[in-house]
């Protein structure tokens, strides 16, 4: 019983795995389908087919581009379901091919619908930086008006903060400024909603020190800095300023710096020659603001205390020039998307990139500051120090931070840069076509290994040759094209016995005589009496079983039977017959080991 039960289980397992094998080609995304009509179909016929498609499937076929007319290349919007339907429909007869119009992407672009309005993120090269890190594992303290969990912060991670204004644990926002700043740092990104943030896998620590009207005391702010340092913040963002020099504040900043915290502060919005406190303190990185054209924003402070420049925007000419994030309406508390301007908006850009640098492995706050400054795009003609070390560049910063560290990402990038991760390499390069072949060889070896558990036999070269002949042939030879030589001999040598029927003509449709138990059976009957050659026959039977089973699963086109259930059933039955044949031959002719 066990002898019967186990093989059944094994074959069911293999079949299940094969039927669920979808192949690499299915993993791309598409929302349009390409139809390439045959060149010999008259234009009027194409038009009538197109209007029929339009009517039947409620789609609007159109030329792929103005250059596609000659090739009769049309596209329609549609999904996998429509693709399958079209392939089976009448229209398929008139086309050279119907296939998914895969989308190729150079870099990862988030799917947040208003990402296109975030000129500021593109201007700091954020997409290339995201290839390496999104800030995972770091914590950014936002010392501000508090942070409210608006819809576009739902997927963002938070750690406990504190409300120093009302002395309570929960630090929600009643102004809108702090929530906006937190959004620039870590707005939930790739969530199909709203806008993006810079280090969107970093955690936010909300610390409320400014009241609803937007002011707060130096004492509260100094306490918040110490709280952040004591509770594991990696970066502190302070989009606030004013007052004068304060010993309490200086001490708090030095304390946090000593604990390895990177401190970022806004330079101020007075259009004055020198940054405001706290940006002026030596261990705080002072950030000036740029407008959408990359110039100093009209309000930004400059001169002493400005260490770097980042987008702060300008809403003088309208909201498009501002920095867009999700925040609250202070009047109603409702969620809104608001375009703000200010060095307040510039600082969190730098804080976000500081988190990316930290996540890339740079620990010391002085080193992080150096990476920020060295990677910034320097402005050579800057007599008034509008820009500090230059304009923030997230990609260059992360690249500099990871320099000298060989990471898994480098290997991945090498694969990508060399085209190995490009779907084109796999689909058009024909590598996908190799996978079934490899599966056939592996399958035949598995079957042989399995049979050997019950009928111990010796592996020998005739048996091995039989396995290869039956399962896959010397399949790599199929790709050989040598000038002036006919290709068919390579195709024949590159084919297994079940595939031979179509090999000479170059067709991939299986011939039902070759793709059946017939040849292995003939070989077994002929060779069973021969001590050496019978192993070739047995190997062939096992190989053919694997080849037919896999063909049944993935490309079941059989001449005269179509490519549907009938062909699948034919191939599956013959695979089982081959397996049974091999089993029978082994049972009667097994050699002592």
């Amino acid at each position, binding site marked *: 019983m066990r002898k019967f039960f186990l093989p059944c289980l094994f074959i069911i397992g293999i079949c299940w795995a094969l039927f669920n094998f979808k192949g690499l080609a299915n993993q791309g995304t598409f929302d349009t389908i390409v139809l390439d009509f045959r060149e010999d179909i008259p234009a009027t016929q194409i038009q009538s087919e197109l209007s029929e498609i339009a009517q039947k499937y409620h789609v609007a076929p159109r030329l792929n581009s103005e250059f596609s007319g000659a090739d009769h290349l049309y596209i329609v919007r549609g999904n996998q379901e429509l693709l399958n339907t079209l392939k089976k429909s009448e229209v398929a007869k008139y086309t050279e091919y119907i296939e998914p119009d895969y989308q190729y992407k150079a870099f990862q672009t988030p799917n947040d619908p208003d990402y296109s309005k975030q000129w500021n993120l593109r201007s700091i090269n954020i997409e290339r930086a995201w290839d390496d890190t999104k800030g995972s594992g770091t914590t950014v303290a936002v010392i501000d008006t508090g942070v409210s969990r608006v819809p576009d912060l739902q997927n963002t991670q938070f750690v406990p903060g504190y409300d120093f204004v009302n002395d309570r644990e929960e630090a929600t926002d009643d102004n809108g400024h702090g929530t906006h700043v937190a959004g620039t740092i870590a707005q939930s990104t790739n969530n199909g909603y709203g806008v993006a943030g810079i280090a969107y896998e970093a955690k936010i620590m909300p610390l409320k020190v400014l009241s609803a*009207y*937007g002011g707060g005391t*130096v*004492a509260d702010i100094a306490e918040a800095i110490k709280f952040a340092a004591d509770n594991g913040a990696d970066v502190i963002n302070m989009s606030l*300023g*004013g007052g004068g020099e304060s010993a309490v504040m200086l001490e708090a900043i030095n304390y946090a710096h000593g604990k390895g915290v990177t401190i970022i502060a806004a330079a101020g919005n007075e259009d004055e020659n020198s940054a405001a406190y706290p940006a002026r303190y030596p261990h705080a990185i002072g950030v000036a603001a740029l407008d959408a054209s990359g110039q100093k924003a009209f*309000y930004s402070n400059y001169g002493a205390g400005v260490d770097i420049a980042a987008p702060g925007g300008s809403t003088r000419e309208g909201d498009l020039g501002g920095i867009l994030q999700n925040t609250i309406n202070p009047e109603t508390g409702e969620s809104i998307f*608001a375009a*703000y301007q200010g060095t*307040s908006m510039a600082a969190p850009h730098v804080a976000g990139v500081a988190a990316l640098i930290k996540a890339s492995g740079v620990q010391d706050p002085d080193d992080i500051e150096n990476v920020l400054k060295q990677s910034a795009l320097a402005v050579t003609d800057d007599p008034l120090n509008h820009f500090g070390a230059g304009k923030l560049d997230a990609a260059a910063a992360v690249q500099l931070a990871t320099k000298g560290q060989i990471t898994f990402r480098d290997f991945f990038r090498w694969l990508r840069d060399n085209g190995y991760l490009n779907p084109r390499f796999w689909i058009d390069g024909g590598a996908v076509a190799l996978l079934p072949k490899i599966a056939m060889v592996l399958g035949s070896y598995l079957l042989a290994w399995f049979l050997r558990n019950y009928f111990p036999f010796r592996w020998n070269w005739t048996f091995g040759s039989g396995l290869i002949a039956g399962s896959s042939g010397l399949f790599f030879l199929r790709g050989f094209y040598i000038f002036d030589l006919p290709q068919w001999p390579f195709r024949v040598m590159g084919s297994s016995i079940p595939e031979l029927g179509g090999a000479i003509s170059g067709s991939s449709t299986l011939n039902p005589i070759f793709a059946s138990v017939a040849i292995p059976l003939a070989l077994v009957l002929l060779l069973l009496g021969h001590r050496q050659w019978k192993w070739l026959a047995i190997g062939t039977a096992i190989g053919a079983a694997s080849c037919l089973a896999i063909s049944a699963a993935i490309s079941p086109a059989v001449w005269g039977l179509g490519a549907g259930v009938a062909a699948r059933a034919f191939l599956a039955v013959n695979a089982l017959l081959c397996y049974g044949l091999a089993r029978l031959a082994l049972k009667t002719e097994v050699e002592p080991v």
Partner: protein
Amino acid sequence: MSVTVEGTIERKSFGPGTWALVTSDNKSYEILQGAPKDLFKSGQKVRVTGEVRKDLMTLAMIGPVLEVKTFEVIQ
């Protein structure tokens, strides 16, 4: 430190918005919450007496924070 400042009342777009007093030589003061309501009229020219609060920091960062005690409208 009590000061008297002359200038124009303006609404500045930083964060959700802030009231400012801008002098004739373009220096801005941020008006602290709690000032008389009649003061907040954009374009109004005023003479303000009040105190500069050095212990405060703000998100607007447009200049010294002025806590207004009294004001008069000037033409």
